[in-house]
């Protein structure tokens, strides 16, 4: 479903060029749940953001659904409509109600009629138990509620894959569970998912595969059982020993 080939990304900053990704290769099959872990500054978020070209790769190829999406002439907006993304800071639209947040894109892109989109939004809100918040504004909600709504906002476009960029990192601890629960449910429904997270228990329970990214490269990848119980790379061992205390 997603195929990343020899991906490089260099940021040009005032302090000079920073090479964040140094040759990443990765395949994500349909229905697979891939969790990406690694220390901060390792490039894991940039890697994820390259998948829907929020960051433009310096070099390399990104393929989605049989199409190279970072080739010239590709309508990236149409591609992104099929890829949901959830952000660390939710990024709900504060000037719109919850329902309008969810219906905006499907209606504007003519994926659904206004009525269909509203119906769909209410169904999605019901699924996460927030239907009574349909007319509320984002700033009236808790972090956990915001993030759950951000997830269903992406789902409203019926994406083929969902990208999660540290979805629980900005939440108060007591709200992490409710967001992870929605994500687990999504995984059980067969959604293809790529998740950057520090929630190792989520990785253990949900992932088919865990990638360890450090210094712009995938240093180790394995199924979660083996990854956590028997890490091979010394830097993976070091990382896990620090995070699983």
């Amino acid at each position, binding site marked *: 479903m997603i195929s990343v080939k020899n991906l490089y990304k260099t940021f040009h900053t005032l302090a000079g060029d920073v090479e964040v990704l140094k040759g990443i290769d990765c395949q994500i099959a349909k229905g697979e749940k891939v969790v990406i872990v690694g220390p901060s500054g390792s490039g894991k978020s940039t890697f994820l953001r390259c998948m*829907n070209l*929020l960051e433009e790769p310096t070099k390399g190829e990104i393929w989605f659904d049989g199409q190279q999406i970072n080739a010239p002439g590709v309508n990236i*907006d*149409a591609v*992104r*409509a*099929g*890829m*949901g*993304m959830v*952000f660390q*800071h939710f*990024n*709900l*639209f*504060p*000037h719109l109600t919850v329902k309008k947040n969810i219906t*905006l*894109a499907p209606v*504007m*892109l003519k994926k659904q009629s206004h009525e269909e989109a509203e119906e769909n939004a209410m169904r999605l809100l019901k699924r996460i138990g927030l239907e009574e918040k349909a007319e509320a*504004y*984002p*700033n*009236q909600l808790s972090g956990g509620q915001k993030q759950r709504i*951000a997830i269903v*906002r*992406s789902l409203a*476009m019926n994406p083929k894959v969902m990208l999660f960029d540290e979805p629980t990192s900005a939440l108060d601890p007591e709200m992490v569970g409710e967001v992870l629960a929605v994500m687990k449910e999504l995984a059980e429904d067969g959604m293809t998912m790529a998740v950057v997270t520090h929630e190792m228990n989520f990785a253990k329970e949900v992932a088919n595969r865990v990638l360890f990214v450090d210094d712009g490269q995938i240093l180790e990848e394995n199924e979660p059982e083996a990854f956590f119980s028997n890490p091979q790379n010394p830097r993976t061992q070091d990382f896990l020993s620090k995070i699983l205390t």
Partner: protein
Amino acid sequence: MGDRSLASRLYDDFINQNRYMYLVRGLGNTVLITIFALLIGVIIGVIIALIRVNYHQSRKKSILLRIANLVCGLYLTVIRGTPMVVQLMIMYFVIWASGAPIMIAIVSFGLNSGAYVAEVIRSGIQSVDRGQTEAGRSLGLNAHQTMLNIILPQAFKNVAPAIFNEFIVLLKETSVAGYVGIQDLTKGGDIIRSITYDAFPPLLVVAAVYLVIVILLTQVLHVIEGRLAKSDLR
């Protein structure tokens, strides 16, 4: 003049021969110029702000965008670097000598206001978090849809007080319209003075009318801010 009673001065200044109508008609022109000039100013301001933001954000800058940005930069520099009265007179006596004075005033004040509104709106656009653009684009909206539906509404909300302030500044600034023979509120007071040789009461009334309008507009501003803040309430 000192031996005349206040009542007879006031009668002469405002009641006699319906002279208060100079002020009423003048106020009408002042409001007309202000409203339409602000309208033009906001339209120009949005266009310029979009060009300049686009120029700063895009990695591949087309020739057209470069030229547009250059023109905008020139416009901002000239308009903000020269006095309003001079611009008005150049417009009236040189560029557009044959138009209706009120039209010329509207366009002149509009062009002037546009330069200031542009910078206000640009700062408003840039004050919206980058994550908002990313969220819009990640949902499949294109750059224009994202700007129009997600960024601009928030930008306007952020700068609504500043734009309304521009409205108030503009209202007072139109008082120089008399330089090109337009009978605005200030000129109306001046005409009364030239007829009655009594300066103080007409000027005082003119000042009071400006003040009352500004106070009212400020109240309206508070209402607008309250409405806009609805989505901020917890």
